[in-house]
Each structure stands twice: as C-alpha cells, then as structure tokens.
C-alpha cells in the first residue's frame, strides 16, 4: 500500500515534488495517530475507571459518552491560558512545546507493521529510551518556571523518580537485547518469529517483563507512582499553573508517552506485529496469520494500556522514600542478577 501511495504521488506531483508532499502527509498521519489514540485512551481510561468503581462514567455527550473527550478539547480550546505574574515567562511558555515535541520524536523507530516504520535505526531501542527521557527536562522547566511551590516540589519528585527508574527499565531492556542479539526494532521483532520473548525466554524474560512494567509505570508518573502530581498533596504537581491549551499539551504528552512505553514493551516482549503461534496447531496458526499485522500490534498496545490503567485502580500510592527504596534496594539488584541468569541460559542454548 505504501508503494501504491508513493506511485500515485509521483503521478500527480512529478518526481521532484512528490517526496515533499509525502513528508507532509506523514506528518499529518503522525499527528492524527497521536490525537486519535489520546482521545480513545482518555475515553477508555474514564470508562474503565468508572466500571471498576461501579459507576457509569461519561454518558451525556454522544452515545455512551463517546464524544466526551472531543467536548473536553473544545472546552479547553475556549479557556483563557494564564501566565502567572511572577513566573519566568520564557521558560513557562517553552516547556509545553518541549514536552510534546520530545514525545513525538520517540515515534521514529517504532514498527507498526512490516512495512510501516519511519526509520529502521540500528540502535532503535536505545534511541527510544534516550529520547523519551529527555522529557524530564521539560517537566523540570515547567515546575521551576511556574514560581509555585507545588509545581517545584512536583517537578523535583518527578525528576528523581524518572532518573531512578531509568536504570531498571534499561536493565530489563538489556535482557531482551542480549537474548535477541540486536538493538534495532525490526531485528528484535524478527527474532520473535518463532515465539514471543515472554514465552520462549523462560524465567529471565518474565522477570524482565515485570521489572519493565513497574519501571515504565513509574517513569510515566502514573499511579501507584504518581507522586509528582499527587492530587491531595500537590494539587496537580508541575502543571498546576498551566491552563487552556498549554495544559492540554502536557496532558497529550503524558498520553503519548503512555503509547510509546506500551509500544516499546510490545516490541520487546510481546512480539511486535508478530501473530500468536502455537507449535503444532497448524489450522490455528493459519487463522492467526489472516489477521493483519497492524491489528496485532495495536491490539497488544491496547492490552498494555489497559494494564497501566488497571494498575492505577488496584494499588495504593507509595510514599516518596518507599518509591526510591523499591527501585534501589529491590528492582536494581534483582534486575542485575536476572541479567546474569539470562546470560547463562542464553549461553547454554536453552532458548526455545
């Protein structure tokens, strides 16, 4: 389909202009994807939260409240965006741009389907982890520039948290990189053609998956690790002073980071766009092959998103010293031992 669109564009615009038109189309496609997925997951989150608490959730706007998220966007669009008088105005206005742009940049090496990938970078996984942690600069910037004590405390907590859990997430990713022997996203997906890592990687891969899930939830500043914006303590954390569309940009960036983490987790542990195969069940495998790869990919991504939402309504919030203790005294040593354990298993050739 990609080549068909390419040929059509060359037919209409000629060979010199066609690539640029293609680039503009790709830009619009990415924006549409981000906004659409944010709207869908906001709706899902509110509905799932409501059902877990035996409420109905949004019901008024549209059938079953499906248009609620759009209504919220329009409401925010009409709101006045205030800048506090004592704020550092330049930093205050730059921060939303930085946070959103960084979360967009992390989409480059993600493979949505065999042919749908922007850039098959040979260090794709390292790129995603490094770029997505640049966002913490925007958070610190917003917290510092607001000239509000809640914002500053929230930003500092967020910084400590993201920086700490970076290590555990890195070690969990390393386990899979070691098993597959590749750092590129397509290489890791190809290595899972005969089984996803979570199934064929034995115990080390499962431990790595659990560590990755905990660490990435913490990096997203979501409950049970939402200390950076703990409502009862800090009102809204680093974006207390933001309103209107500037606030919406932080919100959008948060949801975009959620998809990026889910997509990374899907790529590393759940086989990316690879269909589910069970050895010996020929007709079942054949049926699974009929489902297009991008449906597999987005299905897995939404299952991961559901897990993140589920965590929020299951676990109580940790205290900040408990949070740092969990990382440094438990997750990091377990992750390092797990890496050695995984290395021994790989060396013995026990990978299925």
């Amino acid at each position, binding site marked *: 389909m990609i080549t068909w669109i390419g040929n059509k564009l060359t037919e209409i615009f000629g060979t010199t202009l066609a690539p640029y038109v293609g680039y503009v189309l790709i830009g*619009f496609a990415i924006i549409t994807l981000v906004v659409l997925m944010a709207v869908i997951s906001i709706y899902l989150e509110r509905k799932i939260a409501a059902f877990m608490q035996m409420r109905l959730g949004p019901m008024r706007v549209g059938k079953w409240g499906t248009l609620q998220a759009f209504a919220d966007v329009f409401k925010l669009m*009409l*709101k006045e965006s205030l800048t506090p008088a004592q704020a550092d105005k330049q930093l205050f206005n730059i921060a939303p741009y930085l946070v959103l*742009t960084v979360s967009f940049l992390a989409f*480059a090496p993600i493979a949505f389907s065999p042919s749908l990938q*922007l850039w098959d970078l040979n260090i794709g996984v390292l790129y995603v982890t490094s770029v997505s942690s640049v966002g913490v600069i925007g958070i610190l910037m917003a917290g510092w520039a607001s000239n509000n004590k809640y914002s*500053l405390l929230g930003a500092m907590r967020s910084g400590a948290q993201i*920086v700490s859990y970076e290590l555990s997430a890195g070690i969990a990713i390393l386990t899979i990189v070691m098993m597959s022997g590749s750092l590129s996203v397509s290489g890791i997906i190809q290595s899972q053609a005969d089984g996803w890592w979570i199934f064929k990687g034995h115990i080390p891969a499962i431990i790595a998956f659990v560590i990755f899930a905990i660490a990435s939830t913490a990096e997203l500043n979501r409950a049970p690790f939402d200390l950076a914006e703990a409502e009862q303590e800090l009102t809204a954390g680093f974006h207390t002073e933001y309103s209107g569309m500037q606030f919406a940009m932080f919100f959008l960036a948060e949801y975009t980071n959620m998809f990026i983490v889910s997509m990374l987790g899907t790529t590393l542990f759940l086989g990316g766009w690879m269909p589910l195969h069970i050895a010996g069940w020929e007709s079942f495998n054949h049926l699974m092959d009929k489902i297009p790869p991008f449906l597999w990919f987005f299905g897995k991504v939404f299952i991961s998103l559901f897990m993140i939402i589920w965590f929020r309504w299951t676990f109580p919030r940790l205290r900040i010293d408990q949070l740092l203790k969990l990382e440094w005294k438990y997750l990091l040593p377990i992750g390092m031992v797990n890496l050695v354990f995984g290395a021994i298993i790989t060396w013995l050739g026990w990978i299925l």
Partner: protein
Amino acid sequence: MGITSLLILFISGLGFAALAISLNKVLSYSRYNPVKAEPYECGVQTQGSTWVQFNVGYYLFSLVFLIFDVEIVFMYPWAVVFKQVGLTALIEIILFIFILFLGLLYAYKKKALSWM
C-alpha cells in the same frame, strides 16, 4: 527513510503545539485581573519566594544514578555481541556485574540509599 523522519516528527510536534496554543489564544476570551496572575496556593497568599534552597532528601541518588547509568550504557554493546562471543563474554559480564554489585553494596552501607 533515514534522518528526514526525525525532522518530520520534530516539525509536526512543534507545529501541532504551536497551532493548538495559538488557536487557543485567538479563540479564548481573556480579561486581565491581578488576582488571576497570582500563584495558585489554594486561596492562601504565597509566603516569600519560591526559588529558595530546600532539602531535597535524595540528592545522593542522583550521584549514584550517574555512575550506574554510564555502566548500563557500557553493557549495551556487550548485549548485542553476546551470542557471537560466547563464554568469554559470559565470564566478563559476571565479573562486571559483581564489581557493580559491590559498588551498590558500598553505597548501601554508606547510607547513600536511605532518606536523608
């Protein structure tokens, strides 16, 4: 597609944010009021400046983080070639992680990992 994709993503992210924020500026009705521009503190007036030094309580974590993050970056090339190198790589990573573990233990004993 190469490095052009980064440029496209950068421009589309920046452009989307600029469009949304400027559209908001155009559409919204704004009326200035000095009370609106005060820092939000649940109705109480802020005491003193916000930009003061305060006890972070976890500054040693950031120092330990710096060391460990560099060590983990060292492990990425090892992870990629592990299957080709085999036993040598396995012995080396066991030594490497053992020394790293001693470092973590040292930080733990020196109470760098406890709340200050």
